């Protein structure tokens, strides 16, 4: 084996190590971006749901819950890797001035994307939001 062949072999081995590493690094980077972005979407939807819950009249628990659920489902949609979970706790309020706290969940389906090569599991995320009712709101 002469020096030129030895050099080519070394370059091939280096490429075989470096390229997969760079791809894995890139996919890991994307996975972090997706995680952050999904959290923003979940926080926004949960926050809006809490705001909707306190726009129902005091004491009308079913209407408050429906407002929150409608807002949640209309804001957080399934797409590619993000699957909305459940919204809990938005059960209304008894008197004006009380708070409503909502908790929302979602699942990041990394395995359904190329990111599954570096994150081979689903990731559950959650968010909570609180809104205070006003005596001037809601007929």
């Amino acid at each position, binding site marked *: 084996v002469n020096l030129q062949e030895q050099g080519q072999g070394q370059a091939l081995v280096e490429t075989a190590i470096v390229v997969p590493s760079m791809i894995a690094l*890139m996919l890991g980077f994307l996975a972090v971006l997706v995680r952050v972005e999904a959290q923003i979407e979940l926080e926004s939807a949960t926050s809006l749901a809490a705001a909707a819950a306190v726009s129902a009249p005091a004491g009308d628990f079913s209407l408050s819950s429906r407002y929150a659920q409608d807002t949640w489902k209309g804001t957080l949609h399934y797409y590619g890797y993000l699957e909305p979970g459940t919204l809990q706790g938005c059960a209304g309020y008894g008197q004006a001035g009380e708070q409503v706290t909502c908790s929302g969940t979602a699942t990041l389906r990394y395995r359904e994307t190329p990111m599954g090569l570096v994150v081979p599991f689903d990731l559950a995320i959650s968010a909570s939001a609180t809104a205070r009712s006003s005596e001037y709101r809601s007929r």
Partner: protein
Amino acid sequence: MVIGVFLLLLFGAVSASLYTVERGAAVTAVAAGARVGAGAAPGNPNTPNIEGAAAEVVRVVRPSLFGTRVNQQTGACRAPRQVPPGEVDVCARLSPGGMVEVELRGRPVNPVPAAFGLDWVLDVGAQIQPVTFKP
């Protein structure tokens, strides 16, 4: 070859980072717009502020869309792929069910050529029940 792969991944990472910032801003903006829309219109406390909602989305999202033209639509938004590259539509309306719907759709400016297969599309929306007030 390694240099080519490196550059491809670098472009991809830059583009994906930019898109994440833009999408995050869009989600925040439509949520802010929905809150404004759910509030009272000027002079009529029990009417949703639809015009104010779209204007709020534009105000919040414009600084984060880096050269993208933001169109404030009066009716329904176009499908994302029908919006020309470098533009996004913002629209707000009252749904048949009485909810305020705010949407942002389009194709923001992307520094990476579409030939790389990274023609990102923004399609985010929010819905909320309008607030009403005691008589």
